[in-house]
């Protein structure tokens, strides 16, 4: 019914991935010991210096072709890299979108020009990308975007407004989903993806949307008649919908879907270590079992997506990815609930104690997790479609 043709019993990380894990772990241990970053939960931090160090080790674009600065390593290695970074809440925002979304999109749909221009810059940690998908009122319904690109000589003039654009105030460029043709019956037609260089284009204004705790990571981005040359269209004009939906599906199942509150679990274990509270034992056991399971499912998808698995393209795991994301979101909350209930504290954002601070950060940012990457409702509708087939 789900995971057809996936052999869970033989799911193992190859030696190369285990070796990489040791390297990444050693690197992170060293960075933490040196105090190069203070982990914060809830929203990945933007830290160009950290990104440069990661890039220097060849760890951005890990699966990409060598000609673009990649390492041609497996998806399982990328999986390991991702989970190691998440396990310590490393500040990856400056390369996250480039590594996870921009890069793969360009490799799949981008022209040689775009690949040459951007991929090496991303792998060197020199260019940070952001995503311009949501608009005021669009929410889960991305097909309703109203940002317009009008054809002009040599390119397009783009006008509109994007919202919830994480780190647009620090990013160098962003992918803009927009209408390149008027709205017709087929709402999904006439959408395209363009690359707008935020810092180098005139007509781009970035304004903060403050999070409810005052933090600034979201932005509104206003595009006022911004010129985008033809060669900055990603893939074919009018094929934007197809491009983003395939990206969305693939990006739903990674460890980032169930590990953003993981460091809180580790601190919880630290707090509870000496407790003989039966509740603590049961809860830690349960949380471990659920995480273990989510991780196996996520790993299975990563493995099947890997070109070397021989399964890429032969299995469609978009629904399974949605399952992992849906369950992962709830799992992240279970950690928060367990922590609250097992350790009686009044958590605060400025607590000196790491556990208490993590707990506060997780509580305050929890509402975001059901928004990011598709709401519960949308994910479940997708899953139900697989189960029930067409109902007409």
């Amino acid at each position: 019914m789900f995971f057809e043709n996936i052999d869970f019993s033989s799911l193992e990380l190859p030696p190369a991935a285990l070796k990489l894990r040791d390297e990444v772990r050693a690197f992170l241990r060293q960075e933490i010991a040196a105090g190069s970053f203070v982990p914060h939960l809830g929203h990945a931090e933007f830290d160009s210096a950290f990104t440069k160090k990661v890039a220097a080790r060849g760890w951005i674009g890990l699966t990409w072709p060598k000609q673009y600065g990649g390492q041609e390593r497996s998806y399982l290695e990328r999986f390991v890299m991702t989970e190691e970074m998440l396990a310590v809440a490393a500040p990856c925002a400056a390369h996250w979108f480039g590594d996870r979304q921009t890069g793969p999109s360009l490799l799949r749909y981008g022209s040689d020009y775009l690949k040459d221009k951007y991929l090496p810059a991303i792998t060197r940690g020199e260019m940070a990308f952001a995503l311009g998908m949501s608009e005021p009122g669009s929410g889960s319904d991305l097909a309703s975007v109203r940002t317009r690109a009008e054809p002009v000589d040599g390119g397009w003039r783009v006008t509109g407004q994007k919202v919830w654009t994480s780190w647009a105030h620090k990013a160098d460029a962003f992918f803009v989903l927009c209408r390149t043709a008027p709205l017709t019956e087929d709402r999904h037609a006439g959408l395209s993806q363009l690359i707008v260089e935020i810092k180098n284009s005139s007509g781009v204004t970035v304004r903060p949307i403050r999070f409810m705790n005052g933090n600034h990571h979201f932005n509104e981005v206003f595009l006022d008649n911004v010129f985008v040359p033809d060669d900055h269209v990603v893939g074919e004009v009018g094929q934007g919908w197809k491009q983003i939906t395939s990206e969305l599906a693939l990006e739903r199942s990674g460890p980032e879907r169930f590990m953003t509150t993981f460091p809180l679990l580790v601190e919880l274990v630290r707090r509870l270590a000496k407790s003989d509270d039966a509740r603590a034992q049961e809860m830690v056991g349960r949380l471990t079992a659920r995480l273990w399971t989510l991780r196996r499912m996520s790993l299975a998808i990563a493995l099947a997506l890997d070109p070397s698995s021989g399964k890429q393209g032969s299995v469609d795991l978009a629904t399974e990815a949605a399952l992992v994301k849906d369950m992962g979101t709830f799992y992240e909350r279970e950690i928060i609930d367990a922590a609250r209930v097992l350790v009686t504290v009044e958590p605060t954002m400025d607590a000196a104690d790491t556990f208490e601070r993590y707990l506060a950060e997780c509580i305050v940012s929890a509402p975001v997790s059901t928004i990011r990457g598709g709401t519960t409702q949308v994910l479940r509708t997708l899953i139900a479609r697989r189960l029930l087939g067409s109902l007409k």
Partner: protein
Amino acid sequence: MNSATEIRTMLCDAATRLFADHVDQKMLAAAKHDGWSAALWKELEQAELPLVGVPEDAGGAGGSLSDAAAVLRISARHAAPVPLAETALAGWLLASVGLKVPRGPLTIGPVLDEKLTAVKDGTVWRVSGKLTRVPFARIAKQLVLLADSAQGLMVVNIDTTEKHAECRITPGRNLGYEPRDEVVLDNVAALAAAPAAAGITRASLQARGALLRAVQIGGALEQALHLSCEYAKQRVQFGRKIAQFQAIQQELARCGGEVAAAVAAALSAAGMVERLTNDHRADAVQQTLMAAAAAKIRAADAAREAVAIAHQVHGAIGVTDEYALHHVTLRALAWREEFGNEAYWSMTLGRAMLAAGADAYWTALSAA
């Protein structure tokens, strides 16, 4: 309709009008930094709302604990940035030992498992100790405290308007931006002191605090539900109002159940605690514990579910500092933890029920 009900209705109408007229986004944004709204407090005092539930002979406005709870529920709907619950608790403590309840914002302590000592020094009592997470300490005119002394537990009050060096307040806050301060007292002279009345203990302060926080959670969640329904009725996605999606309807219905349960538990508990307030028999003590615990447990559980649903329905807009939702949701989440969270109260209540045994279980539950 009886006359107590009529008075309650008038009180609620007045409170609703007052909060609606005076609390707005600008006030709430400013209170994030200032810790409260002095202007709103002035309005409340003019309407005598902070003294509702405090006996008239103690300087209060009269009325019952349930009247005070009714006002508090409304204030929480508006996320009113004022120490109403704390002033009610302080008034209760002062009145219980026959001390006058002054005007102005008051607060109480300890709220955690901390101890103060009071020592008699000639005619004055001097209080020492360290308290953390004291609500609105830096704003309160008086701290009304429970302190241990050679004569047993004392109710003492301390003036914080004249800044003695011996009383150091370090500001802190909860997730809802309300002041939760550290207070260090080093032989501070009390304005007054009196041996705690029967039934006044650290535990009863905590129980009443938990009860009032449950009332506040109920009010905050009502507002979160209201905002969610309004949003769902106007927000369009995939060509339809999201209120028309059955999935959204089912979630809102679940949210409604949680909110209704929180409010029902908190208000029921307020009535029961009041009825039993001067009854110190074991049965009455158990009923009081059950009521306060049930209110806090149920409200805290409801907060988890209802806040999650409210934010889910709202999507991204709900988490921005410009939109109203977070004022009530962050407060509700913070209030869960205060005066004992649901795990604390569940264990306390569970221990009591287990100790009473299976054959007494239904008797206790059905006693009122």
